[in-house]
């Protein structure tokens, strides 16, 4: 089946020296029992299941947006128990430090005063919201849900590629990938014991409701809502899924209003008080009286209600200052500064182009580097040096020189690969893994996460908007020592 599969040159999740790794052996055995025709039939059933259920995302650009499903690949990423423990600890450590950093920069600014992080990186950051400096926020927690993107290098070492502390999407896909896998490929679960996702949403709900606004009397149950931009938002399915699973109302800005610095939702029987808003719209659109005044998605006056302690907004306003691609460079320093620990999972080497030496090196070595716009995501405004034309590289040279603070550069990592089955054949594709961190009174990591795969052969871009697909991710349970 894998006769022509090439697992050399890159770290491969499944195959080593032309044979499957130990933790993939039972999966491989089941795979051998299926014919190519059966696999194709199952493949088609899986794709149409997503389409029928309307699990789609919107690609902007076309008129009104085009709906697409994220292609699903049935070969899961399997993570052995001991490796997962390291990831879990690494994520908890990172989020703890990032949360402390956010609290610090909106209060005492110790990390800046002590020279660990340059003040300009915070003060000139477009996502640093001066409007919320000193706000008393629930649990002093800025990060209710984070999506941390991990990759593995050529040695199989996990590294953090990106922190998403604003509105990380994709959690619904983690569940849907598992759902489709269980329905259409049940045979593959044979001889495996994996961490279930069944109880995860309960944990998510508990963490959400723990964010009681400071002014809510202790004897009252909080009312929470999920604020979405509506059906045309690219992550709308994610919003529907989360609201439904957490049993909270899915609202849009037009459903809410602020009266006397308190937030209300418009129901068929009049206004009802809201205590917690899990918002899935960006800061810029949240409150037209404070941020973009042309925003139709937000709620006028909500920031004032937030600052007065009448409502909690999750994730906290202004988190963007910590997940900026330039700030990323300093996260290991944050871990050392706040926790006095060494990072368990490191960063990818990153060049800051405001640094003269880095800038010089990057401009001379563009053909070996990846350049990213610090404010963009989803694979936009990005240069993959080795695959780009000289013309494009020159264009990026000019862009970098015009605004060096807007870009960072990283070496082209030999991203790990895993087999994918597309168009009737197996071939190796680059992957990454988005880990979801949930934080309320305690910190919880959703076992597994969303494995994203660059389905186009040779491509390094895993984003769904750029043609990437998804895979189920299995975390193996601890092996029974007596077995």
């Amino acid at each position, binding site marked *: 089946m894998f006769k022509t599969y090439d697992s050399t040159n890159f770290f491969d999740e499944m195959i080593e020296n032309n044979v499957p790794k130990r933790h993939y052996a039972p999966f491989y055995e089941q795979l051998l029992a299926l014919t190519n025709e059966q696999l194709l039939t199952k493949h088609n059933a899986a794709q149409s299941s997503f389409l029928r*259920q*309307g699990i789609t995302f919107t690609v902007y650009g076309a008129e009104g947006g085009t709906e697409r499903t994220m292609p699903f690949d049935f070969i899961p990423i399997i993570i052995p128990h001991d490796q997962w423990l390291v990831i879990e600890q690494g994520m908890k450590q990172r989020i703890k430090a990032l949360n402390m950093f956010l609290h610090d920069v909106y209060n005492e600014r110790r990390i800046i005063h002590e020279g660990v992080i340059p003040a300009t990186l915070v003060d000139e950051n477009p996502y640093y919201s001066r409007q919320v400096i000193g706000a008393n926020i629930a649990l002093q927690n800025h990060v209710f849900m984070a999506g941390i993107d991990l990759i593995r290098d050529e040695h199989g070492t996990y590294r953090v590629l990106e922190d998403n502390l604003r509105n990380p999407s994709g959690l619904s896909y983690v569940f849907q990938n598992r759902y489709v896998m269980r329905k259409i490929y049940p045979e593959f679960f044979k001889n495996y014991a994996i961490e279930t996702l069944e109880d995860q949403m309960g944990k998510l709900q508990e963490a959400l409701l723990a964010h009681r606004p400071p002014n809510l009397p202790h004897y009252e149950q909080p009312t929470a809502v999920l604020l979405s931009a*509506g059906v045309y938002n690219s992550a*709308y399915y994610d919003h*529907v899924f989360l609201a439904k699973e957490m049993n909270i109302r899915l609202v849009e800005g037009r459903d809410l209003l602020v009266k006397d610095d308190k937030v209300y939702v*418009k*129901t*068929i029987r009049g206004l009802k008080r809201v205590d917690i808003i899990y918002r899935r719209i960006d800061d810029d659109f949240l409150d037209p009286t404070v941020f973009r005044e042309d925003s139709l998605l937000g709620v006028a006056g909500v920031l004032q209600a937030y600052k007065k302690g009448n409502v909690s907004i999750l994730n906290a306003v202004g988190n963007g200052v910590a997940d900026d691609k330039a700030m990323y460079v300093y996260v290991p320093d944050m871990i050392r500064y706040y926790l006095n620990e060494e990072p368990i999972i490191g960063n990818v080497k990153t060049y800051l182009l405001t640094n003269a030496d880095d800038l010089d090196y990057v401009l001379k070595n563009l053909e070996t580097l990846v350049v990213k716009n610090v404010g963009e995501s989803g694979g936009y405004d990005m240069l993959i040096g080795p695959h780009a034309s000289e013309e494009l590289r020159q264009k990026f040279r000019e862009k970098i020189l015009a605004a060096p603070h807007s870009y960072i550069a990283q070496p082209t990592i030999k991203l790990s690969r895993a087999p994918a089955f597309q168009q009737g054949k197996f071939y190796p594709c680059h992957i990454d893994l988005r880990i979801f961190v949930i934080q309320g009174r305690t910190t919880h990591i959703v076992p597994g996460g969303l494995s994203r795969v660059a389905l186009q052969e040779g491509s390094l871009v895993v984003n769904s908007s750029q043609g990437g697909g998804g895979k189920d991710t299995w975390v193996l349970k601890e092996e029974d020592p007596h077995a």
Partner: protein
Amino acid sequence: MLSRVADALYWIGRYSERTCTNAHILNYQLEHMLELGRTDKQYKHQWNTVLSICGYYDDFSARYGSCDISQMLYYLCKDEHNLNALDSLINKLRNNAKNSRDCIPNELFEEWNSLYLLNKETSLDKPFDVLEANEYLANIRKYSLTSTGIIDSVMTRDDCYHFIKIGKWLERSEKTALILLNLMEDELNLKKDFPITTALQFTNTFAEYIRRSGTRETNAVLNFLINEVHCSKSILYGITKIKSTIIELENYEIRPYAQKLIEAITDVEKLLKSDVSKMTVSERKQWIIAIHNACIHLGPILSKTYYLTEPILVK
């Protein structure tokens, strides 16, 4: 429940019912048309009536001007300028389902989404093919009926269910009134018996009526379709259902804000219970116009009572 979501559910009820009924009427009309010669005087009258019931006669005539079957079918099924075209109804249905997706069962969303996908794949291009058109319409009806089954068998009898049902009953009552209005208004131009038989066929009650009644006299059929309490397509049946649903929604305790709505429904009930046998032809016509208007006016009162808002329409 959110007002916006209640509004979406109410319109789901309406669009779902309208889609199913329009598909049925077109299906019936296509089969019936086979027996009529294109030059037959009735042919034009009948299609004009169908256009008024399932779309907008004036809009069609202004833009197309002819009585070509392909054009009429295209207008009623796929024309994006016709807000009542099946295509448009299915899009709105799915959009409202998306807007209230956190409140409806997954199976229900999947059914409407599948209908949306099927509709997108189906083209009704010229040359017009009766068999293809019939298959398309039959499929739409099948999806609509299955979704009704899912609503009744899966949904909890809560506010969400009630708003879908109110939408459905109001749409059904209004549609029966609209069918009667159009057929009775054109009574003199249509072949004898035609209006009354067609009213039964369009409301899909022909077999039921024949089984229950021995006479095909106009007043008897009007009584059946207007105030027969056991006929699920009768206007009285729909209005009574709306009233009982509102009372249930209000937990059997009518608060002041819902008073006006209950009064309006009670007025319609009284109007429906008039004795048609004592009316002249002209009075009968006025009566049907009054019923149709009364049904139309219930919608806005309902919207005001529950702060419903218009959903954002698909561009």
